[in-house]
């Protein structure tokens, strides 16, 4: 194409003439993309640790447990590429600081296998030179507070005690984290396992299958079931492991999606504003090019290439930066390729689309150079007339007029400020909601902050545990409770039945709809359970607890942050006696302002370390990564809106350069000229910030509640940011924007513009 050379000359000259602006565009897009990738990867890693672990350990997709070493060729199944094991595994109990935890002791060779090999995070792998060594899975070790070299006392099924020593702590992708997934996992050498558990009948065999296609698990596990028949005890696949490791993925996923959409909109706005502003400023040059023989298509292509290249360069830089940051922070395997590629492709498309419109408009420039880019003749807008009426200073009137002469760019500028402001308001709302969780745990069902169990081996009578708890001076109330799993009708899965307190003296569940139960046979449930069973308040549900039917009427909905809200809460007396006597645990509500850890320590000392005391984990602590995301979000949004503003005010300046000369000639001081320009931009900023904050406020509680609803927690958690926070945010936003608008305005006010230019 003959215009290639000429066009490239022009692009080069244009870029050279506005280096700073071009760099700003590239950096803005790069910042957005990098932030998106970092956030996506951090969230992915935080919520889905399985993927990274699976990659590191070359994990197996299917795990099967048999009561004898499988004598069939599992490796011969179609789609199975490699087999791990079979390994012998024996159930034991780990006794640690008076606590007893269930564990599976796994025999593993001294040389780790190729497939599903645990990755040693601390210490070393098993060594035949130290036969009493044990390697403990990391979450199990963390839960038991085990360090390298610590003794590891186990009680075999025979009741015999053995003491091993922790040689290493390893990551594994073969089961979920302890204590959500029990038993805990520990590896010993086969010879050691033979000594601890000589009875083969008391152990089981574990085999892992690595598949060519991860989606073939269904077929493969069915084949396994058929081949092994009654030898097979249970099978589970990577999907269950991943699900077990996932943490509130739905909430974070939605947050990520929201963040992504905002990022894309922001990138589009940034590029569209930069390109659009530039094209408007170049109409004269474009007309000249046309008069020399550039066609309409060539001009459009030229603009598309120039601005698109800047955007794409930003996307590429951002991808590299985001990839680099996450690789440094989390390690190279942590970068999930699919979200990263999706982000890169998405932003690239959005950038090109955003550039396309101004490019197309530029291509349609009439070729008569005599028609320069004049703003539409400035008629006084209604607002300006109002300003004139109330006798504002002339600079303000002129600025008000200027703000609206070009309606579309004025709208784009205000919109470009409003969208980020809305997102910031929503972010602050999420923050306020988390604060509310932390400050008022009772509103998310955590009235009790300590859970006391009499210990698994019942060295302590439950009544004794209750007495110790009640005697403590900082304990306000003790509620007996039990957690049981119940089968739901028509569902092949169980739901949690939580019984705390009695029906007449109920535990204060946060009921947001309906009412609290006040008699036997009534229950309240989380949104997740209502959705799962398809019931509503007032309905009766029939569950089966260990063979005993449990029929309750649901009279209210609670805010339920646990287990995706799939929890039904009843009084302890609603359960059958076999499940409720003696109580499985006591929930301790503490007096306000009391330190949990102190009470916990005192109770442990009181009971001679034989109580198992757990602290309730506030959902705000689990979701603390959201706060990081919010801060990042606000930073990126701020950057974007400032870049937008700079473009907008530069454009405004170009439109008014001639007017300004005339105004100066009429006797406006430089300060007044500056005030005119700042008013022109500032008015749009104030409008945008106001509209954005208002829009954000009006949707924030609804959005959070909607999210709560879909994640099973249930509506009723959303909090809007406090008036003070919002006021500070608005003032900071407007102030920063005005400060940014001041820079080009100052320069313009001092520049000598000849009246005769053009």
């Amino acid at each position: 194409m003959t215009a290639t050379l000429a066009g490239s000359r022009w692009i080069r000259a244009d870029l050279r003439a506005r280096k700073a602006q071009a760099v700003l565009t590239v950096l803005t897009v790069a910042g957005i993309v990098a932030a998106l990738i970092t956030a996506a990867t951090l969230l992915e890693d935080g919520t889905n640790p399985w993927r990274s672990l699976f990659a590191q350990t070359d994990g197996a997709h299917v795990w099967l447990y048999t009561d004898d070493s499988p004598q069939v060729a599992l490796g011969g199944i179609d789609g199975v590429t490699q087999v791990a094991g079979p390994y012998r595994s024996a159930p034991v109990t780990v006794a640690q600081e008076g606590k007893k935890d269930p564990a599976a002791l796994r025999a593993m060779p001294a040389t780790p296998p190729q497939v599903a090999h645990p990755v040693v995070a601390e210490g070393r792998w098993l060594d035949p030179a130290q036969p009493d060594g044990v390697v403990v899975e990391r979450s199990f070790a963390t839960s038991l507070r085990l360090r390298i070299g610590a003794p590891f006392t186990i009680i075999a099924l025979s009741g015999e005690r053995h003491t091993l020593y922790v040689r290493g702590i390893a990551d594994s992708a073969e089961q979920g984290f302890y204590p959500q997934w029990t038993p805990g996992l520990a590896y010993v050498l086969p010879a050691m396992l033979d000594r601890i558990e000589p009875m083969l009948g008391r152990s089981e065999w574990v085999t892992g299958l690595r598949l060519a296609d991860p989606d073939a698990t269904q077929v493969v596990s069915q084949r396994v079931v058929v081949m092994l028949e009654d030898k097979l005890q249970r099978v589970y696949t990577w999907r269950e492991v991943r699900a077990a490791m996932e943490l509130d993925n739905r909430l974070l996923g939605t947050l990520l999606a929201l963040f992504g959409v905002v990022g894309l909109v922001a990138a589009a706005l940034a590029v569209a504003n930069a390109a659009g502003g530039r094209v408007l400023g170049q109409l004269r040059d474009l007309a000249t090019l046309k008069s020399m023989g550039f066609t309409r298509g060539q001009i459009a292509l030229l603009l598309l290439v120039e601005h698109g290249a800047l955007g794409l360069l930003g996307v590429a830089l951002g991808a590299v930066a985001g990839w680099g940051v996450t690789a440094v922070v989390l390690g190279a395997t942590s970068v999930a390729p699919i979200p990263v590629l999706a982000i890169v492709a998405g932003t690239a498309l959005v950038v090109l689309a955003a550039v396309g419109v101004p490019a197309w408009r530029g291509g349609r420039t009439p070729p008569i150079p005599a028609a320069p880019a004049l703003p539409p003749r400035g008629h006084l807008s209604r607002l300006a007339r109002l300003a004139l009426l109330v006798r504002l200073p002339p600079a303000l009137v002129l600025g008000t007029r200027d703000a609206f002469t070009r309606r579309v760019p004025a709208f784009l500028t205000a919109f470009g400020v409003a969208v980020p402001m809305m997102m910031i308001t929503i972010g602050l709302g999420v923050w306020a909601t988390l604060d509310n969780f932390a400050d008022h745990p009772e509103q998310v069902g955590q009235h009790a902050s300590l859970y006391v169990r009499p210990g698994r081996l019942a060295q302590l009578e439950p009544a004794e545990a209750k007495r110790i708890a009640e005697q403590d001076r900082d304990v306000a109330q003790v509620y007996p409770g039990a957690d049981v799993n119940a089968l739901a009708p028509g569902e092949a899965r169980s739901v949690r039945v939580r019984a705390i307190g009695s029906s007449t003296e109920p535990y204060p569940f946060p009921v947001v709809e309906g009412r609290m139960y006040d008699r036997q046979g009534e229950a309240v449930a989380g949104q997740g359970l209502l959705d799962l069973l398809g019931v509503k308040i007032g309905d009766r549900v029939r569950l089966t607890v260990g063979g005993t039917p449990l029929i309750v009427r649901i009279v209210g909905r609670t805010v339920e942050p646990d287990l995706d809200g799939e929890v039904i809460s009843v009084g302890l007396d609603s359960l059958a006696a076999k499940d409720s006597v003696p109580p499985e645990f006591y929930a301790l509500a503490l007096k306000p302002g009391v330190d949990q850890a102190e009470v916990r320590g005192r109770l442990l000392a009181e009971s001679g370390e034989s109580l198992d005391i757990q602290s309730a984990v506030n959902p705000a602590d689990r979701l603390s990564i959201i706060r990081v995301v919010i801060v990042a979000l606000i930073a990126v949004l701020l950057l974007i809106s400032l870049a937008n503003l700079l473009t907008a005010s530069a454009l405004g300046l170009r439109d008014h350069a001639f007017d300004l000369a005339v105004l100066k000639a009429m006797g406006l001081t430089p300060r007044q000229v500056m005030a005119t320009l700042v008013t022109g931009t500032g008015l749009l900023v104030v409008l945008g910030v106001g509209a954005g904050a208002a829009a954000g406020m009006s949707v924030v509680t609804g959005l959070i509640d909607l999210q709560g609803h879909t994640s099973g927690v249930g509506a009723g958690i959303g909090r809007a940011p406090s008036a003070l926070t919002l006021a500070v945010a608005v003032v900071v936003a407007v102030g920063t924007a005005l400060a940014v608008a001041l820079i080009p305005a100052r320069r313009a006010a001092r520049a000598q513009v000849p009246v005769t230019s053009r």
Partner: protein
Amino acid sequence: MSAVVKTVNLVKIYQDGAVPVPAVRGVDLQVEPGEFVAVMGPSGSGKSTLVHMLGGLDTRTSGEIWLDGKRVDTLSESAWALLRRKKVGFVFQFFNLVANMTVGDNVELPALLAGASPKVARERRESLLGALNLTDRADASPAQLSGGEQQRVALARALANQPSVLLADEPTGNLDSRNTRDVLRLLGDVHKEGQTIVMVTHDARVASLADRLVSLFDGEIVDDGRISRRRTGTAGEVIDLR
């Protein structure tokens, strides 16, 4: 020899809201090769519109335009653009140099656009700038040049592809008398070398340089005559009359 430019009953009507505003009302004009035609008329007489239509910058409402023996008024905007690359050079009142590009790049641009290799384009630019006494300003940006210099660069750019016709719209309208003289002398020089020129002006002194004067009034040709050119005597008096 056939005419370089020929129009047949050329009409242009602008639609300003609901009111049609005729700018050019049935112009028949024929420009022979090597001719230097000045189009004169008061403001709003349609002279700029006429020249823009001749170069395809504006579309005609009705009538015919012929360029180098080919009918061109039916061409699309893109086809016009391709045609302009080789056959039409434009000079405007406000110079219209591409502000971001150096003087040299401005002059090379049309040659590159017409498909010349960078080397050829550079040679052509050097000879043109040399002829216009601008060799040492090649790397300057247009904003650093005086009005007269800018117009000379614009002229060099317009002539870069040796167009069939040079269309000049008030080329001296924005210049002082000294620069006007320089630019006019250049126009005279290229004309002597055989360049066909159509120039719009409202300045009789400028128009007197042409060898044919077309007067427009309210979009119609009211007078079309050769300017008799004698070595001595009355031609000078005509100029002095103003």
